[in-house]
């Protein structure tokens, strides 16, 4: 029997080529991504009393804590902005990045049961996590805008400007960095479980290395390059500048962050792609 290769729908080989990322296949599973997002959204707050209100309580409590501790007790500068808005903007942005990273970094470990039984492009899971978190982010961001409006009415000195137009790109970059680091770490955790602890710890440290609770301008000139080596710094600063009017905006820094994101994303995708084929034998 002669059957030519063109007729086969699927060819299973030991190893894929390094750059064969199956992105087209990912697209064909977009329904699954949507359903995962919806599942996460629906199931998280089932059997809770406050339900979706938690989306608002979390940033609110964090912001209040920050305001009390860093603003009133430690008296860190906020570039002349109302402390509450300053910390809230930082919290909302940071939560999106940190949640995306921690949750995607658990992709393999948390889905062993599912991955061990059924095939679908494994990237579906981290990508769906990004979108789930995006929903949370949008809700919290609207919440933030509400407070912003409140402060404007009270005559606070904040000046939203044209940089707001960059918002989608900033979100995209946050998501890309979260995803890139997340899948990179999730691939490595299949072999080294230590990394999971490192992630929890590391993400806290990273928050202090990012101008969340302090403005970049408060860092002395000599060390400012260090803080801007962190690709998240320019994102947070641009965000603050766009919506609140103070912050350190430099297109070059943004380009650097974008490049950084591309590299991490690419590296993550390649390693993830490698690991997803045989990780069932390792975990």
């Amino acid at each position, binding site marked *: 029997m002669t059957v030519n*290769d063109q007729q086969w*729908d*699927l060819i299973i080989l030991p190893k894929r080529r390094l750059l064969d990322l199956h992105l087209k296949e990912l697209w064909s599973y977009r329904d699954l991504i949507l359903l995962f997002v919806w599942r996460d959204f629906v199931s998280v707050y089932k059997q809770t009393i406050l339900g979706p209100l938690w989306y608002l309580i979390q940033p609110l409590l964090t912001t209040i804590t920050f305001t009390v501790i860093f603003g009133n007790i430690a008296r860190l500068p906020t570039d002349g902005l109302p402390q509450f808005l300053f910390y809230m903007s930082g919290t909302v942005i940071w939560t999106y990045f940190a949640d995306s990273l921690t949750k995607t970094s658990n992709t393999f470990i948390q889905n062993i049961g599912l991955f061990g039984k059924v095939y679908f492009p494994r990237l579906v899971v981290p990508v769906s996590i990004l979108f789930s978190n995006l929903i949370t982010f949008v809700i919290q961001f609207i919440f933030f805008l509400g407070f912003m409006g409140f402060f404007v009415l009270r005559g606070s000195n904040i000046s939203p400007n044209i940089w707001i137009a960059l918002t989608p790109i900033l979100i995209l970059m946050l998501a890309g960095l979260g995803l890139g680091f997340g899948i990179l770490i999730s691939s490595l955790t299949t072999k080294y479980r230590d990394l999971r602890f490192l992630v929890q710890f590391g993400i806290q440290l990273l928050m202090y290395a990012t101008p969340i609770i302090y403005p970049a301008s408060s860092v002395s000139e000599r060390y400012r390059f260090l803080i801007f080596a962190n690709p998240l710094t320019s994102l947070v600063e641009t965000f603050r500048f766009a919506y609140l009017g103070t912050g350190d905006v430099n297109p070059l820094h943004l380009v650097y962050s974008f490049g950084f994101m591309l590299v991490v994303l690419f590296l993550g995708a390649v390693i993830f792609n490698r690991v997803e084929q045989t990780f069932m034998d390792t975990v």
Partner: protein
Amino acid sequence: MSTVISVENLSKVYHLGQIGTGTFANDLKVWWARKQGKPNPLLRVGQPDYGNRMGEEIWALRDVTFTVEQGAVLGIIGRNGAGKSTLLKILSRVTAPTGGMVKVKGRIASLLEVGTGFHPDLTGRENVYLNGAILGMDRAEVRSKLDEIVDFADVAQFLDTPVKRYSSGMYVRLAFAVAAHLDPEILVVDEVLAVGDAEFQNKCLGKMGDVAREGRTVLFVSHNMASIRKLCTNCMLVDKGIVKVLGGTDEVIYQYLSTLQRFSLSSLEARPDREGDGRMRFTHFEVAEGSPSPDSAIVGAATRFDLYYHGAPPLRNVQVSLGIYNPSGERLLWMGNDTSGSLFKEIPSSGIISVFLDHFPLVPGQYLVNLYCEVEKRKADWVHSAAQITVHPGDFYGNGKSPTVSTGPVLVLNSWSFRERK
């Protein structure tokens, strides 16, 4: 007919034990030692060095090559650990092979374990959509099949109840229903039939039969020879990662059962679960004549059972009997030397007692054998399920036909005639 699955030289290596050492620090130590040409510092003395790996290699599959034609129902049988599941895992792309290649035409759906991805907090309906998507259906497809799925699973009333409130039966039925309605060109099934009640199992078998009749292909892994026999057109015997036989179902099952017995013969002599004063003990049981192997028989064949024994002399006035039971414990046959003839006046202290049957009278299936003996009216040995025998189809009546289970459990030679009444 065209080939829908072509497996070429497929191999899969697993590393027993851990891969790496599990922590980065230890991996570094091993790597550093190797770099300096020193032995692995973490190994115990005398343990073989497999490089960075702490365990040895196991070939779950080795150079497996076969093709499956469209519409075939291929049974895959073999002992535990033979490589069946690995093969299915590679086919369903859960893990990648180490070597070789698989080419597939059409969509593969696997029922490796049903209900994966069900979320306990979501309702039945929500889970149908979710599970359908996980298995590769899009929403429109699920929507069009929802009624059919719900009907099949028989959970219409509970469709909007979270599945964590379902009984395990309902849960499994719904999960199987989703998978079964995927309408794949190739369906891979692994032992799902072990779940659910008898009625549902029949329904599943029926559904698989339907799938096959529609010209689609089924790969079916099971330890249940009855379902394999019922469903499969072809069968493949996998042993130690190699395809031993690929051929007609009956022939392959026969081969499998005859390899199987070599491992399952537990020593009758060593069995502790027996009664009697022990003056005489059965040490071994086998079907010595009229069968392909010591633990199987053929319907209608002239058959001899050999009962090996050992005892303390003198063994006088010995009564020996043998009962054959079906797996649910019902006695189908009972034979004793005193009822069909007479007691043995005296037998040697160790030897073989044989029972002869002209035509083995039980239909194909699995049976258990009980052995019993008395020495001078005192129970000497009594072993329940002393042996298991598999009865293969055979020509009982000498008419070229093989009786089936539907004729009833026991066969008897008989002849028919008629005459006119005036």
